[in-house]
């Protein structure tokens, strides 16, 4: 759907009183967003490799796991800007464990979207790692993922309203 059509549909849905965002949306679990497999690296990975991985996969964060595969830290593009740029002489010699955010706030996939958004808002994070019962990362949720999910559900509501009204 083109942006113009989308907007006109949204306006007409609003005028019809169609509920664009289902009230239970924020109560859905984070797992319903469709978790993507996280990119994980070991703590002794060099910054050069980490940045190359971020560039190659066009993502904004990497999860750092220990030998048991458990979450040890997160390295994001923000860490890259705040801690690395202009401060590290050789990216090949520096390792990620010295620059990552250690023990980041993590969530289980059954947690609600509302809770994740609240975490992001209060904590100022843009990424929340999702871990299983053994603290092993199974995904990562970014603000963009949540926004995309809300827009998808909104479009579904519009299409459903167009079918019935």
């Amino acid at each position, binding site marked *: 759907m083109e942006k113009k059509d989308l907007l006109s549909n949204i306006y007409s849905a609003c005028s019809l009183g169609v509920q664009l965002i289902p009230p*239970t949306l924020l*109560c*859905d*679990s*984070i*797992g*319903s967003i*469709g*978790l993507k497999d996280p990119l994980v690296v070991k703590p002794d990975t060099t910054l050069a490799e980490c940045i190359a991985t971020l560039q190659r996969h066009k993502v904004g964060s990497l999860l750092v796991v220990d030998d048991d*595969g458990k979450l040890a830290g997160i390295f994001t593009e923000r860490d890259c800007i705040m801690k690395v740029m202009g401060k590290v002489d050789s990216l090949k010699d520096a390792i990620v464990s010295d620059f990552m955010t250690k023990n980041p706030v993590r969530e289980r*996939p*059954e*947690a*609600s979207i*509302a*809770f994740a958004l609240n975490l992001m808002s209060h904590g100022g994070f843009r990424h929340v790692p999702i871990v*299983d*019962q*053994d603290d092993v990362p*199974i995904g990562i949720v970014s603000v963009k993922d949540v926004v995309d999910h809300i827009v998808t559900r909104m479009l579904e509501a519009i299409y459903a309203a167009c079918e019935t009204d």
Partner: protein
Amino acid sequence: MKVAHRAEKDAFIVELSISDDRLKLFAHITPKADFKAAREEDLLKEISAITPSDLIDRMVVWDIITELRQGKGCESRRVAKGVSPVPGKDGKLVWLVRRFSPGKIEDTEREFVDFFTLGLFENIAKGREVARIYKPTQGLAGRDVVGKLIPTRTGRPAGTRFDKTIEARVDDDQEAYTTLLAAIDGYVHDEGGKFTIRDVLNVSGNLDYGMGHVDFIGNVRVVGDIQKGFNVKARGSIEVLGSVLGENVLTSESSISIKGFHYGGPGSFLSAKGDYSVDTAEKISTEVGGNILVGREARDCSLHSSSAVIATRAAIIGGSVWCVKGFEGRIVGNEIGVKTDIELRNELEVTREYRKLSDNIQKHRAAAAALELHIGPYLKNRNRVPLLRNQFRDKMMMLLDKYDQVQKALEHLESLEKKMREGKPLELEARINVTEKAHAGAVFRTGDAMLELKDPVQGPASFKPTDDRKAWSTVPYQDLTKE
């Protein structure tokens, strides 16, 4: 430790021992008189006799020889190291959604419990990912110091059992996990370790603080009562085997059935796309797409149906009934003559747009009446308005302008209403049937026609409006339920 090898050379005596876990080889070196002639090759040769050369720690061997040449022996220096086995990881099941946990009331997210919104389950739409089964890993075999393989434990698969309502999707054999998808709409239920998606939410007792409001994607069945203030929304049907105790909002995209008593009261509402059946109802307000079936009695209810209202064995006392295909009741009204409205409407008149339009007309009429009160005699004597003092005159002009606007809008809305009324004829066989008695106070309406009973009418009797909906006539009784 166990001695595995002993040798005597010109410069030293070597004794090699293997640790109990067979992963380390220790050397015990005793220098001889000719210790200065000690050679690294000699020691390496003896060690290589029992251990593969890649496991030998050459730096240690070199150090031993260096010290030996100075006349120093050594006690238990580790000269070789095996490779520990890495056990395989067990497979595991990771849930991506909340499973139904009846009676489990905890809320770590909000740090308080709202008993109305417990969220004990999550609606799962067909095709949605519900869980992942991570595959077990093989593990890596180790090697002891003599080069023999040490077997490792392979991870055990996750013992997950699920029925056909959950489908496994294997996109890629190399993937670390298998995704489980919902094959039907419903919620995930744990039946003693076997997982299933249930499309019927069965509330075994009362729907109360133990369950909270229900908003479910499938059918809902409540074995007990729905307590006061609890709402149920279901995409499928709602079945209540007990009673509904008031101030509830019940919404279904299918049918609603209440076996017991349904009390509405303030703030209550019932909406169903299919049929609604109830044994006894009081002060309920409904908007039903299918038939409304009353078992024993409906008192002071607004029963609005886009089909028929059937109360063949029931009494309808007070309130109003709107129906399209007809009404059939045993008793209408009561001995004291309570006003009971039964109205036949066409298909358009029961739509939401028509109701909105009717409400709008009512609001305009009320506004016009209020303006008439304000304006008073100047409404009919507009020519006297210029005689008023400036300030009062302007105000009166403004009020008259507003009144004209309201009247114009009202005329427009009334013409729309008329168009909608005339847009669809009444159902051919639509009529009002009374099988036992219609008391005085019963009012039958359709379009502009109104029949208010001044005296009781004994049944069976049928009342049918004329085609132009301007008058009512009595016709021979014909059972509505047989059609």
